[in-house]
Every structure is written in structure tokens, then in C-alpha cells.
């Protein structure tokens, strides 16, 4: 939702607090694909993302009474989504995965349909691969700021870090992403990706 839509957002918050289904539908239609994309790329799994996104929406409905009247849906939903992902990692005994990633992602699995897969250009596929190979802490800041268009200040709040720490993390994430892309471009055709450092 853009700043222009802030008035609408405030009205939706009030209506959702009152339990109006129509308000929920509007918020759901606006954010569901974005939340799913964020979680699928963060978790590198569509199945995990579907489970987590369901939990995000159920939390919104369950906690609607406690929403502040000036709540911004974007930061609220992405904060819950991120926290649920971290809980998922802990529950899978993968909390270290949030720093150095344990498993290589397979971006091709993120595309549900052949249309989605073919719609992605070769560069986009390289970008998805490079993104998937970043440590989760860097991946999430790029997803929040560059993909979702949240302000760095909002991303800092979501990630629970200071604005300065977010700025540094974003800068490092950009450098890492550029390096991964550069590596991918230099990789000769047919060389397995596993040989990448």
C-alpha cells in the first residue's frame, strides 16, 4: 500500500478490528502473494512458505482486537512472517541456518508453473540462484527492501536491528549478491553449481 493509500489502510485497520470480513479480504488480496513470495524465497521452499503464510493470516485474525489503530499492515505482516520463519528454523534445529546457510536452495522449485519458470529470464534465474545462495540474514534484507520495497527503517524494525546496522547489512548483502552474480556469469556452461565456493 502506498502512502496515498494510508487513509484506506487506517480505515481497513478499524474495520478489521471490528471483525469485518470484507476488510480482511482486501488486506488478504493485497498482501498474500507478497508474503508468500517473501517466505518462499526466504525458506527456499514453497511448502514451508504455504504453511507459514497460513499462520501469519491466522495470527492477524486472532490478534485483530490488539491491532493499534495506526497499524501499518506491511511491516506488521512481514514482522510476523519473519518471526514465524525463525521459529520454524529453531523447531527444525536449524537456527544456525540464519547465519551460515546449511543447505543450498533450488530456485527452480520456487516456480509453481511452467509459465512462471519460462517467464523468468536467464538473468532472473541467475539472480534467484544468487539470492538463494546468500546467508538468510542478507537474503531477508534484500527481500524486504529491494523486492518488497519496504523502507530500510521499516526493515530494521522488522529484523529487530538499528537503522545503522540495517544500512551495513544491506550494503554487505548488495556486495555479496553482486559477487555471486559475477561468479555465476564467469562459470562455464555445464559446470555444476556445487563447485561454487
Amino acid at each position: 500500500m502506498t502512502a496515498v493509500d494510508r487513509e484506506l489502510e487506517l480505515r481497513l485497520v478499524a474495520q478489521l478490528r471490528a471483525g469485518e470480513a470484507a476488510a480482511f479480504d482486501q488486506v488478504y488480496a493485497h498482501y498474500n502473494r507478497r508474503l508468500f513470495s517473501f517466505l518462499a524465497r526466504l525458506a527456499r521452499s514453497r511448502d514451508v512458505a504455504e504453511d507459514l503464510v497460513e499462520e501469519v493470516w491466522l495470527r492477524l485474525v486472532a490478534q485483530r482486537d490488539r491491532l493499534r489503530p495506526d497499524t501499518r499492515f506491511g511491516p506488521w505482516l512481514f514482522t510476523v512472517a519473519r518471526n514465524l520463519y525463525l521459529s520454524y528454523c529453531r523447531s527444525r534445529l536449524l537456527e544456525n541456518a540464519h547465519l551460515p546457510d546449511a543447505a543450498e536452495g533450488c530456485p527452480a522449485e520456487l516456480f509453481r508453473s511452467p509459465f512462471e519458470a519460462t517467464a523468468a529470464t536467464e538473468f532472473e534465474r541467475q539472480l534467484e540462484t544468487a539470492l538463494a545462495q546468500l546467508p538468510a540474514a542478507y537474503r531477508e534484507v534484500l527481500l524486504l527492501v529491494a523486492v518488497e520495497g519496504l523502507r530500510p527503517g521499516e526493515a530494521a524494525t522488522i529484523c529487530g536491528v538499528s537503522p545503522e546496522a540495517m544500512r551495513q547489512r544491506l550494503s554487505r548483502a548488495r556486495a555479496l549478491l553482486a559477487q555471486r552474480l559475477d561468479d555465476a556469469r564467469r562459470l562455464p556452461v555445464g559446470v555444476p553449481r556445487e563447485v561454487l565456493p
Partner: protein
Amino acid sequence: MTPEEAGCPPLDTLARLTVLDPGDASVRRVRARCLAELAPSTRRGAAAAPRLEQAAALTAVGGFLAAIVTAALRLLAAR
């Protein structure tokens, strides 16, 4: 995003990445579950209104009957 960051080609391209779609079944299931969670509060609100109307009607009838009884008692006492 700062202007410097906005000018970074990988970040620009990230903004144009394909938005991924959850499965249709998942979308329907989640929406249905959430609307079902919302429904009780709506039903509670809808059910409360008739109860209030009934209470108001009973109060009015009770008041009317009390007035009749009072008037009858006064008449009996006057005799």
C-alpha cells in the same frame, strides 16, 4: 532505499523478480479458515441485537401492566 542503493543494478532487478503465487487450494483454505475465525464475532454482534429488542419490549409491557395494576388498586382503595 537511498538513491545510491536505488542505482545498484542487482537491487533494481530484484524489484522486478516474478511474484510467486501460492497454490489455489492454499489460497482458498487460508481465506476460508480466516473468515471462519472472523464469523463468530459477527454472529455474536448479530445475535445481540434481537436480545436487546426483546428486553426493551418486555420492559415496556411490564411497565404497562404495572400501571394497570396500580390503577386498579387505587380504584379498589377508593371504594
